[in-house]
């Protein structure tokens, strides 16, 4: 059918129409980047930058960037910015915020940066209730080095150094960083969204907005984890990225608001605010319990043997 259907010209804007969404977020100096096809990080970037624009805080914002694929956004984001070392962005952001307490300060880190290399930094920054917003782009893989296991890789996930899939007994268990940070008294707002479909993008945008609003109210540490597609690092076709994300990462790192201060105003999610998103075909716990089933634990069955 497609071959026959008439194609609408899309080379230039039509007459008698108004633009409802711009090509490039206001705070991007160029739409060009070197991310792979199907990467979810630019989607998260748009969410972040659009939110800053809409909040009207771009001219009092400092970004602190970690090291990963997304580091290249340092050169394209039209924001005052400090480039940090791998893992260290929360501490650098702490120094920035303490010297510029009336500015909006956020970090952008990947899961390798935040949950592997810099785990204690984000934990302590959250525990101190540092008034910064940490944004985690979590794709469960070291994308920049070419697809290696991180601390958030899920059980069964194939990476270049877990060729048979991540095995809990041999490689350990993934860390649900959002859940961990939500337990700390210093964290005011914690949420986990994703960019694997347009609805998720819209929900994630509300989370990012609420995180920054929490910072503007001075409530403490705010955190938004955004699950992003990495088809290159997952070794799946680009078009299958969203589905793979939902079936793997999304089942362990379940989406939803994990924590919000009572005074933070009503949630856009209404009743579902503090609960994982409902999903068709069974709740996330089904899959999680499958991944962490008793028989898969050490000594629980023949599959558990890895020669240790």
């Amino acid at each position: 059918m497609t071959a026959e259907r008439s194609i609408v010209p899309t080379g230039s804007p039509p007459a008698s129409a108004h633009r409802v969404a711009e090509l490039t977020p206001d705070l991007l100096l160029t739409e060009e980047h070197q991310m792979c096809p199907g990467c979810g990080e630019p989607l998260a970037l748009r969410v972040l930058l659009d939110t800053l624009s809409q909040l009207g805080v771009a001219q009092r914002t400092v970004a602190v960037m970690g090291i990963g694929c997304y580091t290249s956004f340092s050169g394209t984001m039209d924001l005052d910015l400090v480039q940090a070392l791998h893992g260290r962005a929360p501490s650098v952001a702490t120094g920035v915020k303490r010297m510029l307490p009336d500015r909006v300060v956020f970090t952008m880190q990947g899961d390798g940066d935040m949950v592997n290399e810099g785990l204690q930094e984000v934990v302590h920054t959250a525990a101190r209730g540092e008034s910064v917003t940490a944004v985690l782009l979590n794709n469960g893989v070291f994308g920049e080095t070419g697809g290696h296991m991180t601390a958030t890789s899920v059980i069964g996930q194939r990476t270049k150094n877990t060729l048979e899939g991540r095995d809990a007994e041999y490689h350990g268990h993934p860390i649900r960083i959002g859940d961990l940070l939500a337990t700390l008294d210093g964290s005011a707002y914690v949420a986990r969204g994703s960019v694997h479909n347009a609805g998720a993008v819209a929900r994630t945008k509300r989370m990012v907005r609420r995180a920054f609003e929490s910072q503007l109210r001075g409530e403490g540490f705010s955190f938004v984890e955004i699950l992003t597609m990495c088809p290159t690092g997952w070794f799946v076709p680009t078009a299958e990225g969203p589905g793979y994300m939902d079936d793997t990462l999304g089942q362990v790192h379940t989406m939803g608001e994990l924590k919000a201060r009572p005074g933070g105003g009503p949630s856009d999610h209404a009743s579902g605010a503090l609960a994982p998103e409902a999903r068709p075909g069974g709740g996330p716990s089904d899959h999680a319990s499958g991944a962490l089933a008793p028989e898969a634990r050490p000594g629980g069955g023949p599959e558990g043997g890895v020669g240790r």
Partner: protein
Amino acid sequence: MTRRLMEGSEAMAEAAVASGCRFFAGYPMTPFTELLEHLARRLPEVGGVCINAESELEAVGMAWGALATGARAATGSTGQGLSLMQESFSEITLAELPLVVFNMARGQSDYFQATRGGGHGDYRHIVLAPMDIAEAVELTQLAFHLADRWRNPVLVYGDYLLAHTAEAVDVSPMTFAPLPPKDWAVDGSLGGTSRSRTVSSLGVGKVNRPGGGIPAHFEAVVPKQAAITAEEVRVETGFLDDAQHVVVAFGTPAKFVRYVVGQLRAEGVHVGFVRPISLWPFPYEAVAAAAEGVRSVMVFEINGGQMVDDVRIGVQGKAPVVSIGGISTDGSGFGVGPLLDVEVIRGRVEAVVSGQEVPA
């Protein structure tokens, strides 16, 4: 002038405050701890911030962030803690941020760490080694000035004696030459203007105003080292004119050596001293001049032999270089041991002067 009795830690903290330092982050470790204590008390009194960082890694990262806003900021530890900070020191140097680092060291075995660094890449820190509290007050203030002047980290090398000795000192702000404005610092105000700023060690600017990238950045940062070497050598010498023997020492042990040399001179022994105040840049020329025509160049340092390498570079084979220092510590490991004794040092100098073996 009002002088007040202060331990070195307090005096250095006061000197940092007098220098305009308004941010400090650190993690307790003897003998650095009291410096942190004093800054934790003093900085809030002057509108600054002192954070009890959860680790040295975090302390240096916090200072990095504060520096990026243009604030005068510092961190510190003992050498062990500084070992943890080395990655950040490298990158902060390449980011051209004016960090001041205090190493309240356990003895002098951090000479290599201070002057060569344990980090990656082509980076150097200016290293200043005071011998007593009065000099520490001056060099701390100089450190903040030089860091800004060169946009390069400066390390102040102290030790247990410096931290815990008290002297009556006056900590008044010193006056230095004017510095250029910190137009590179971020304040968050330029987002969305196409003129936003990036503080980065990678030499990467914005796409509309790209930096030269990593190669060009290194080419721009590294040549500063030659300029610093040309302009920032600091050294004290004494009794060199007719010296037949020279002793080289730095930091608080140099005060012992200077005292011994003074005693021996009073007794007619032709001995002089060279005291490097800047360990990097090292006073190679002063050492070379001192080595001219002497029978020996002795090196007294409280370690297994580190600065002796630089002395040999300076001497260039013109005289025998003899190490008369050594490892010296008490049970605590804080670097105050039996070698820090005027009589012991005198004995070792006299042994060399008289052509005997140096006692092991």
